[in-house]
C-alpha cells in the first residue's frame, strides 16, 4: 500500500517564553486507507504535531512528505494549495463560517480549488451531505444547526475536494457519546469503503481502541 503521509526526524521548539523542545525526533508513516489515532496526555505535543502535519505550521526541523512529495520548505502559496487539495481538516470546535449556509460552507474549499464548475461543486456538496444524512440542512445558516450536525457539516467540507488524508484535532471532544459514536462510524466508513487515510488526535480511549493503529505520545516522543 502506498504511503500518504510520512514524517522524518521532526523536531520542534517553542521559543517563547522559554526555549522548549516540544517534539523530539518524530518518525512515522500513514498508509492509504489506514485509520490512525494519536493519543497522549495534554501538553505532550500531539496537537502541535498534527498542525505541522497539516502544513499550517512551518516552523519545524525535519522533513514531511505528502503523497511522496516533499512539503517542507515549500512557499506558503503552494502549501495553501496542497492543503486545499490533499488535506481535509476537522476541528474540535466545528469551525464553520457562521454567516454562510451549510451548503456554502461545504462548497467553499472546492470553489477555492476551482477545478470544477459551480454546478458540479454544488452536486458534489449535496452528495457529501446526503452521505452524512444532513442534506435537509443544506440551505440553513451554519449558525442555526446543532453541534453534532455542525461536526458532520465540517466532515462534509473536509471531504469535498476528495483529499488524500483527513486530519482531526479531537473531532469528538466536544460531542456527547451518541454523536461521538456517529462521527466515529462516519470515519470508519470512509476508511473502509473509500480507502481514505485518517489521522485523528483524541483523548477518547474508546474511540482510539476502535482505530487501526494508535500512536501514543509522551513528552514529545512517540512511545512504543
Amino acid at each position, binding site marked *: 500500500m502506498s504511503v500518504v503521509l510520512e514524517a522524518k526526524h521532526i523536531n520542534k521548539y517553542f521559543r517563547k517564553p522559554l526555549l522548549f523542545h516540544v517534539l523530539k525526533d518524530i518518525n512515522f508513516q500513514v498508509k492509504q486507507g489506514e485509520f490512525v489515532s494519536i493519543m497522549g496526555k495534554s501538553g505532550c505535543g500531539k*496537537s502541535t504535531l498534527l*498542525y505541522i502535519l*497539516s502544513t*499550517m*505550521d512551518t516552523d519545524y526541523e525535519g522533513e514531511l512528505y505528502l503523497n511522496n512529495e516533499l512539503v517542507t520548505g515549500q512557499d*506558503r*502559496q503552494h502549501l*495553501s*494549495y496542497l*492543503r*486545499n*487539495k490533499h*488535506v481535509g*481538516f476537522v*476541528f*474540535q*470546535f466545528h*469551525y*464553520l*463560517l457562521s*454567516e*454562510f449556509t451549510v451548503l*456554502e460552507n461545504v462548497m*467553499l*474549499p472546492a*470553489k*477555492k*480549488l*476551482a477545478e470544477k464548475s459551480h454546478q458540479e461543486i454544488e452536486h458534489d456538496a449535496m452528495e457529501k451531505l446526503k452521505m452524512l444524512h444532513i442534506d435537509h440542512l443544506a440551505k440553513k445558516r451554519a449558525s442555526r444547526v446543532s453541534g453534532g450536525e455542525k461536526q458532520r457539516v465540517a466532515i462534509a*467540507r473536509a471531504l469535498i*475536494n476528495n483529499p488524500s488524508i483527513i486530519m482531526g*484535532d479531537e473531532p469528538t471532544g466536544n460531542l456527547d457519546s451518541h454523536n461521538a459514536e456517529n462521527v466515529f462510524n462516519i470515519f470508519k466508513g470512509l476508511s473502509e469503503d473509500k480507502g481514505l487515510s485518517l489521522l485523528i488526535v483524541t483523548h477518547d480511549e474508546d474511540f482510539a481502541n476502535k482505530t487501526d493503529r494508535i500512536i501514543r505520545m509522551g513528552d514529545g516522543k512517540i512511545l512504543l
Partner: protein
Amino acid sequence: MANWPVILNISKTHLLTKIKQTSIAALGVTFGIGSYITLVCFMTGLNTMLDDLILNQTPHVHVYNEIEPSKQQPISLYDDLKGSFNVVHSIKPKLSQKKIHNALPIINYLEENSSVRAALPQVKTQIFYIAGSIEIGGNLTGINPVDEASFFNMADYIVEGSAEALETTDNGILLGIGIAKKMSLKVGDRVQVSPINGGIFPLKIVGFYQSGIADLDAVQSFTNVKTVQRILGKANNYITDINIKLFDIEKAVPLAKQIEQQFDLKAIDIKTANAQFETGTTIRNLITYAVSITLLIVAGFGIYNILNMLIYEKMNDIAILKATGFSGTDVQLIFMSQAMIIGFVGGVLGLIIGYVLATLIGTVPFQTEALPTVETYPINMNPLFFLIGFSFAMLSTFLAGYLPSKKAKKIDPVRIIRGQ
C-alpha cells in the same frame, strides 16, 4: 491565482451580514466625499465669479502707447562720450502722441494671427460730465459695443439698455450707474460731456453700466468709437488702445513681448496685470482642499477602525479559511475588496449627495449691488472635482483597508485554532 468570484462572494456575505457596520463605514466616505464636492463646487464657483468680475473685462493683451521717458537719452548717442559715466538730471517724459500709430493696419495684422480671437480698438479719453454749473470728471471710452459684448462679456455689466442700442444710436452713451445716480439721470435723458480741450457735446443715454466696482462706475462711461473721435475732433484712425482676446490665455505673455518688439508699443499681458487675483484664487483653493482632505482623512480613519474591528471579529473565519486552503493573499484580498466596495459605494453616494447639495445651493437667491447679473449663488460643477472626489474615496479606502488586511494576511491559523 486569485479566485475572484469566491473572494467577492465571501466579502459580499461579510458586508451584507454586518449591514449596519458596513453602512456606517460607507456613510463616513459618503459624507466626506459629499461635503468635498459641495465645498469645492461652491468655493470655486465663488472664486470664478470674483475673478470674472475683473478678468472677464480684462483683455488678454492690452496694447497702448505709454507716456514715458526715452530709454536712450541723446548723450548716449554721442560717440565722443562713449565709455564715460554720464549723469542726466531731471528727465522728462518724451512728448509723443497718445494714439497708436498705424492702429488700423496693426489691428488687421493681429486679426490674421491664428491664436487671436479678436483685436478690438478703443479710444480712451478724459471728459467732464456737466450738470448745470457742476463738472464731474470722468472717463469716456469709445468701443465697438457689439464686439465688446461678444468678446468681453460687456453685456453682463449693462443693467439697462443694451450693447445693440449703443451701436445703433448716433451720439449715444452708456453711462456709469454711479454718475447716473449723482446726476439723477435715466435712460432716454441727455447728458452733456466736455472733453479737456473744450467744447460741449450732448449725448443721449441709451443704458447704464455697472461693473460692480463702485469707484469705476462713478467715472466710467462708454460710447461708440466714432462718437469719441468726433468729440475729440480726431480722424477715424485715432485709436488709443487695442484689446486682444486670445483663444489660449497661455499665449498672452509671448504675444505681448512680440508686439512690444515689433511695433514699439506698450503691451501688457493679463498675467502681469492681474497677478494678485491669481494669488487670491490659489490661496482660496488651498483652503478648500485643506478642508476637504481633512474630511476625507477623517472618513478614512472611520473605515480603518471598522475594518480593524471586523477582522478581530472574523479571526475564526480567517483561521478556518486558511486551514481549508485559502492563502494569506486570498484572505488579504477578501478584506481589501470589502474596503474597496465600501469606498466605491460610499464614494458614488457621496458624489450624488454632493451633486444634489451643490445644485440646491445653486438655486438659493443671492443678490448683491456689486454683481448685477448674479441672481443665485454661483456653482462650478466641474467634472474634474467628481473625478478627484471619487479617486480620493478609492485611495483613502485602499489605504484604510490595506493595513488591517495585511494583519489578516499574517494571522497564524494554528494560534487561533489552538487558542480555543
